[in-house]
């Protein structure tokens, strides 16, 4: 499918895959144990866009932190290709849920940070930065500080900071949360275009059904408390993806399937008093109502 043709400058085409095997994560708080993740096993395929979905609080960010190597699983293993994850590494770069741009650096300095600390030569840095900044449309804004950029621009800067290093795997944790609907749609379009151009292995976290299906090659649905892998859905919509596919019968079919799976978990999260889950349940209930009427 998505190959690395025509993207030689952006990427060397050396991508990886992730194996998560029997990963459990338990947090201990004041004699109380909270099992956040329980026996999670899945595979992020090379060159594919895998979307991880689940209600708010189900442990998606924790799972990302484990894959990125920021935290260690209580039990189980994570492999990148066939190398066990022992700590953070440049082969897996994360776009964080809350912005993690360095506020004291300009967009340019943020983007080149990785190259600078690795002592890449100055002129190579400059050349690559120019290419990447132009790619994400921030070249004109390179001297602005993050606080002077709009939400969408911040996300693009963060994306640029990751892709300039050509990671084997790109991990994005709800990157478009908090953006307004219009910006969000533009960002999704931009992001999916970038993915289709480069064909890098991507792991994308979201709790928006439409976003998930629009982007994904494969959907992984998680359960709520404890977080387990509930199901995997193959999304066989053709690429390049376009927004009009959101109305296609196949999209609807997949969506119904995903909603069925998610509903139970969202309701559980809702019952547990999770605020953000409220929106998801609301959306799902509305959706179900419509379906029943149509049926």
């Amino acid at each position: 499918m998505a190959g690395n043709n025509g993207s030689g400058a952006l990427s060397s085409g050396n991508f990886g895959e992730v194996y998560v095997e029997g990963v459990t994560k338990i947090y201990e708080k004041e004699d109380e144990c909270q099992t956040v993740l329980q026996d999670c096993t899945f595979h992020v395929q090379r060159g594919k866009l895998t979307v991880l979905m689940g209600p708010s609080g189900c442990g998606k960010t924790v799972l990302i932190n484990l894959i990125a190597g920021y935290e260690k699983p209580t039990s189980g293993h994570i492999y990148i290709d066939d190398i066990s994850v022992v700590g953070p590494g440049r082969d897996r770069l994360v776009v964080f849920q809350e912005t993690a741009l360095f506020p004291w650096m300009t967009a340019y300095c943020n983007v080149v940070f990785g190259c600078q600390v690795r002592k890449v030569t100055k002129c190579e840095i400059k050349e690559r930065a120019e290419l990447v900044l132009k790619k994400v449309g921030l070249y004109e804004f390179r001297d602005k500080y993050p606080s002077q950029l709009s939400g969408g621009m911040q996300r693009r800067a963060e994306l640029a900071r990751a892709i300039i290093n050509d990671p084997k795997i790109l991990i994005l944790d709800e990157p478009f949360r908090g953006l307004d609907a219009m910006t969000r749609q533009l960002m999704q379009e931009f992001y999916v275009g970038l993915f289709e151009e480069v064909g890098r292995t991507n792991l994308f976290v979201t709790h928006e059904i439409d976003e998930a299906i629009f982007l994904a090659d494969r959907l992984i649905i998680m359960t709520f408390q404890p977080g387990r892998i509930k199901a995997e859905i193959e999304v066989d919509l053709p690429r390049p993806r376009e927004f009009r596919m959101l109305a296609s019968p196949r999209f609807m079919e997949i969506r119904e399937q995903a909603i069925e799976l998610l509903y139970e978990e969202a309701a559980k999260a809702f019952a547990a008093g999770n605020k953000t889950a409220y929106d998801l349940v609301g959306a799902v209930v509305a959706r179900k109502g419509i379906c029943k009427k149509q049926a």
Partner: protein
Amino acid sequence: MKKLKKVFNIRVLRGIISIVIFVGLWQLVVFVKVPYLKNLPYPKEVALDGISAAGTKIYWLNWEISLIRIFIGFIAAQLIGIPLGLAMGVSRKFKDFTFPVFEILRPIPPIAWIPIAILFWPTRELSIYFLVFIGAFSIIVINVLQGVSNISVSLKWAASSLGARPKDIFWRIMIPGSLPSIVTGMTVGMGVTWNVLIAAEMIAGQNGLGRMTWEAYTNYNIPLIVVGMVSIGVAGYLCSSLIRWLGERAMPWKKRF
């Protein structure tokens, strides 16, 4: 731009009006001889005394002496306090060893150190430097410590993923990340420092703005007391402005556009 200028002018005007009203009230209070305040000089007397004081060499010498004391004590506090706070923030072990002692000493008001400072330091001047140091020290340490621990963990994670070594994380994340707190600590510390300096000068000094004010009191020269007070206020304000200016320079990303 034009609009901004207009607003600015209105605000300046309001400020001027408030000062005029204040001086007017002062004049009135003296004029009607409000009980307990009847010894207060007229604003004009203070102004005249101030002008004549400003013509003397000794007045400016007092300024110089006080400012030198402030800067020596204050800078010493920063030079020792900032690295100490950073070390406490970075290393849990170091913090566990040092913080308890620090917490025991911290609640002691800097002025309470005056007697022991005078006894222990060989010269009065050194004891005043020391007191100024104490005034700024604990505040900067606490602020740096807080600044370091407030740096979001995802910034450190992001940096280490991008290939930063501990050295890079320290210089490029921890230092700039705690800079806002450092500046806050310095601003607050500068205020405390002036309090301490004036008390120390009144009790132990032979010169300086605090001593000048105290001597005016012993000579029952009330206008000169007020001149001293205003001078101290102005000096403190100038020092704080300097810190604020430096802070803005050091943190261009905080500028509002």
